[in-house]
């Protein structure tokens, strides 16, 4: 760190500003566009299907990248959620499963 901790490069500030603006445009843009679109029963059903589809598409690449350990942890999470129906218990079970499996892999 050659510069002071509380200094910031001008070009860096410009970059961060652009990143923040582009991200906000995306955060607000989809919401805005939906307000301009007539919500027909078909659009409504599409919107209803969207959350689940987003979650599946977000989690699947994480499993593909993370391999068998991450995949098993998420199976544990799904089972915990189905039977216990408590989100905080679910995330704890999954984290504990990951820690245990990695510990075991490290020891063997």
């Amino acid at each position, binding site marked *: 760190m050659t510069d002071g901790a509380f200094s910031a490069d001008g070009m860096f500030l410009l970059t961060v500003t652009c990143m923040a603006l582009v*991200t906000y445009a995306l955060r607000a843009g989809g919401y805005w566009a939906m307000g301009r679109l007539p919500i027909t029963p078909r659009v409504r059903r599409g919107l209803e299907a969207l959350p689940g589809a*987003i979650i*599946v598409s977000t989690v699947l690449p994480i499993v593909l990248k993370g391999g068998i350990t991450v995949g098993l942890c998420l199976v544990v999470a799904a089972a915990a959620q189905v039977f216990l129906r408590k989100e905080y218990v679910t995330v704890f079970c999954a984290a504990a499963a990951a820690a245990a499996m990695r510990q075991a892999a490290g020891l063997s």
Partner: protein
Amino acid sequence: MLEKNVTLSFRGCVQGAALCIPLSPGIIALGMVFGTVAAQKGLTFLEAVLINSLVFAGASQFVAMEVYNDPITWTTLIVMVGVTAAVNMRMLLIGASLRPWLGQVPSRQTYPSLLFLTDLNWILALAQYDKGNRDWGVFLGSGLFTWAVWSLSVIPGYFAGGLISDPKIFGLDVILPAFFVAMLVPLWRGKRQTVSWLVAGIVAGVTWWLVGGYWSIFTGAIAGAFAGAYLDD
């Protein structure tokens, strides 16, 4: 479709914040890792805090740091903004799915609140909406809480890089995906979800395999939504 009983209350905000507490270890670990990465890349403390709090979108920040080079040229700027846009493209869809609920609220309230839109408070809020809760304080409160935790967690990460040397040892990296899976369970109702999720999964998997990166979230989600829209029960 129009509902008139949409409200915003302080209690709703507190409830939203409380729902985030079990997820805090995951948020803190990720924020700290970002602080460490930022320090290693040579960002000043102020720069690290600014990028973290203003952009407030974890995955895109990490990818942007991958392409960061000091000093920043115009090319670097364009690439950093470009990867940020690509990674955050899914926000368009997330925001769109909030329309039926937040569309009832005056624009001067919704547009500022969308600054705090993340996958996390979006899915938390939608789960509450599914249960019949129409108090959108849940969305705002969880968003503000997540932002505050995220903003603070970068500080210890920046100064003490090795504090959590490897979040994987404690399984902290699976907290957020496990939470997503937990949120998926109550969304399942029957055949329409099964088909829609299957389509989303196949398209996302193929996209990931072909181009990698974060495009799979976008393509998979759109394919799943179309399947849901055109599938009649």
